[in-house]
């Protein structure tokens, strides 16, 4: 426990909700409002152990963010879970090709989310 999760979503409601669910499980949470903010948090906060990212965000969308994260030496293997309203097979495929480990489509059940997070940490 006590792993550090970065939540990247332009919706404050979604950020707060996911943060609430993760904190309840004992994880430490940092929030970012878009890809650029997410990159900032990656290097200013304590080491991030897992990233939950939305796709449609201003300034830098989720897929560009994931691609950039994979470029960083320190975070090229960090588990990334996409949590997005875009659920078409093409979107899922793009996300996975860019380096996401898991793709969840909103609306997502909190229990399923927690189960997936635990699985990603277990794979580490």
């Amino acid at each position, binding site marked *: 426990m006590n792993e550090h999760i970065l939540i990247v979503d332009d919706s404050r409601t979604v950020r707060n909700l996911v943060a609430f669910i993760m904190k309840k499980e004992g994880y430490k949470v940092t929030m970012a409002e878009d*890809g*650029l*903010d997410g*990159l*900032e948090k*990656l*290097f*200013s906060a304590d080491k991030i152990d897992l990233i939950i990212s939305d796709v449609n965000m*201003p*300034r*830098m*969308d989720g*897929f*560009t963010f994931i*691609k*950039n994260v994979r*470029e*960083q030496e320190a975070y090229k293997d960090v588990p990334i879970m996409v949590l997005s309203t875009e659920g078409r*097979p*093409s*979107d899922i*495929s*793009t996300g996975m*090709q*860019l380096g996401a480990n898991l793709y969840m489509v909103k609306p997502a059940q909190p229990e399923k989310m927690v189960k997936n997070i635990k699985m990603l940490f277990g794979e580490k």
Partner: protein
Amino acid sequence: MNKSPEEYFREQSLVPSPTEKSGSFSEAELAFMRKYMGLDATEMLHRIGIETLQEEAAPSPPAPLKTEEETFTPKSGKIVPPGLEQLAPTTEARQVMTKFVESLQSSPSPQTGPAGEEDVFVPKSGKIVPPGLEQLAPTTEARQVMTKFVEALQASPAPSSLPPIGEEAAEPELQAERPGTPPEREKDAQLQSEAAEETEPGLSKAAQALVEAASALTEAASAWAGAAEKGAPPRLPAEEIPPAPPVAPEPAPPSIPPAERIRKEEAKAAEAPPEKPAPAPAPVSPRLAAPPPPASAPLPSEADRISSLRPLTGQEEDLHAEMSEDRDLESIMRAEAELQMVGFYLGAQEFTVPIIAVQEVIRYQEPAKLPASPEFVAGVINLRGKMTPLVYLRDMLEIRQERKTDDRFIIVCRRRGLQFGLIIERVHTMYRVPQKDIDWGIEAHLGINVDLISGLLKLDDSLVAIVSVDRVVDYVLEK
């Protein structure tokens, strides 16, 4: 089903913003097009999916008519159909009719009346064919409506005999009893309070016919435009107009093209009473009266041609971005207590740009190459309907180091009305730095093109250069 990331990003960038509106090319965009596209600008933009509209530089004389009798002749130089000035200045009807009479005005008149006569036009013969009309199919609604319109004008009395519309609005037959009659005034006030599109009771029959004809003309033109999109009349371009949100009535600034103003009026008219059908997009009625240019007209110069280009799709200008766009970026940065900078890599070296200049960061897209352009100009892409030149920042900064990675990103900036992309290798992170950690006076040579660097950022124990986005624009447009 499976899509490559490149295809995904390409599709995303082509999706138009839902708040797009038509506009015009900025000065900086026109300068870029003149410098790097020249005569091929329209074709190059078409290649990346940006359709343009060539506005006619000068009014063209109408096509020759069949017989001399089939024309109407204005008695004086100024044509003002009776009742027109009484219509609200921003209604579609007035705009449509103004365009129509302007075309009538520019038609050759075998006889001109002496100055000072009343401003009406008088047809020479019973049969009236406005210039350009016979080029339309004889059975189109537009021709029928316009014929009805000029017949109404023909039947209307001289302006001096028409009562003014407004508080004293009344039928001509009621003129003798109206002044000071309270019941009439009440009736008028009640009727005046109805929707703006409805005809006021005080309008004369002729003026009413004018208004009805103008409304019918607009509707017919819209229906005709619908047929035009299916390919019937070949001359006019089909315009794709996204539905505009209803806007409050406002005086139309002269810089907005007529199609844009009419579109706004249509959005207003969509809220009008139910008996008025919602107007279809793309009113081409201003063009109905525009005859084809004659073969003998001189060709416009290349610069004029590019200056007269208008994009069919545009993008919403973010007000905040626009405000910071015009001011010198460095002066804005120097005034801030804390700056947010986007750090990125070119080779092994890290650089930064201020976040206020950054619109977004996107995945690399292959641009359309521009012929005879310098090496640092990679080409242009279509980013949500806006022409976006891409430049290799690496070449501009003369960085000789080897590329660490082939995967590239584009930092999209917007300055001085030009949206452009800086091709970089990868984004590192975003920094928040206090003003005290920025050194604006650069004395030491950094081994790169210092002209494009506006300052140095002190990060831990290293110095990171701040790229001057303003000077990048100057470099691209002037060099």
